[in-house]
């Protein structure tokens, strides 16, 4: 069973918000004593997703939570946007696929960086991505 210990909501609407958001995630990761490598992975994943949000949905809201399951502590990030949605999830999760002239590693790469990855999208309504990184995961 996953229990939420603390939560925080942050809005990201412009490029300048990315760095403060990343720093906030880092603060939380340090708080639960996450190792440097996992910290970097989490921050990079968060950075990928927040950039996607800015690029395709011109911003959204992120819920940052410290969660615990048994003896494991972790960070759960929920990225919610009201963008156009993703028509073909399987294609978007494929390495090298991009509609926006980027490397196309954002979503599949993020999935490899975190412990748990969950994406829900409705075309025309928006996308919600939820990731979990355990402190020792």
């Amino acid at each position, binding site marked *: 069973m996953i229990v939420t210990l603390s939560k925080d909501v942050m809005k990201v609407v412009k*490029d*300048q918000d*990315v*760095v403060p958001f*990343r720093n906030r995630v880092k603060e939380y990761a340090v708080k639960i004593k996450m190792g*440097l*490598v996992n*910290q*970097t*992975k989490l*921050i*990079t994943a968060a*950075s*990928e997703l927040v*950039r996607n949000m800015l690029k395709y949905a011109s911003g959204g809201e992120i819920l940052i939570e410290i969660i615990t399951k048994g003896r494991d502590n972790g960070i759960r990030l929920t990225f919610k946007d009201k963008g156009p949605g993703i028509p073909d999830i399987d294609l978007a999760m494929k*390495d090298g696929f991009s509609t926006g002239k*980027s*490397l196309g*590693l*954002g979503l*599949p*790469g*993020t999935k*490899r*960086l975190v412990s748990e990855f969950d994406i829900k999208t409705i075309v025309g309504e928006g996308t919600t991505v939820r990731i979990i990184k355990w402190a020792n995961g």
Partner: protein
Amino acid sequence: MPFDISMILQKKKMQILEIWIKKQLESADLREDLFSNEDLRASCEELLEVLLSSLNEDNLTNPASADFDEVNEILAGISISQARQGFNPRETALFVFGLKESLIEILQEEIKDPQDLFTNCFKLNRLLDTFSITTFETFIKGREEVILRQTDEIAEISTPVIRVWDGILALPIIGTLDSARTQVVMENLLEEIVASGSSIAILDISGVPAVDSLVAQHLIKTVSATRLMGAECIISGIRPEIAQTVVHLGIDLSNIVTKATLASALKFAFQSMKLEVKRVQKDNRNIVS
């Protein structure tokens, strides 16, 4: 009988102005160093004039009315200039609140019936509150502009190109690489390659906190551009955690020369330029003989 408060206020304009200015002069926070009394009087007069001439019985309860566009414009102008001059938010807020108090003081003198007084004060309050919100918003916008300008300045100065050796350039990148920053970095680097005739450029990313796919893409572009100019590009300062993240992310940097430290990048550069760094014995007569 309903009062036409816009008429009352219009009649008492001078009195309102006097009370308002007196209030501000009395306030201990008055910044005479930033704002002279004449300027204060002039901007108060302008605002009051416009406010009273656009106020009528119909738009009193409708702060969003287009009649107040001019008022909002003047308020925005005042608060933006105050933000830039370094006023604190309290002073700017007091400016509008002072006007509200002065207007209500006059109404109190003019309207005797408590019920009427209350309704009219309430309407006026609501209107002026909307104006103070406008002031807050523009004040903060003014401050944000200052911050954005500083950010641009930092980006400008934080990408120096250093000639570490004849033909070798180093470029330490500190902070996040975004599109605008990459543009500055690339321009500086390419120009310096031409100016110095260098054949090797070292991009040091020790100071980049996270390398995500966007940053990697920018790095790859910079390297390709450098190669087009006929120079080789080495990326140094890759920390262990960054290396692991880049691999998991699936970014392919295999056709770029990468090194862990600036020192090893420099060593590599020396090797490819067929230079050698040697420890020289102080007493080298033996070698000669």
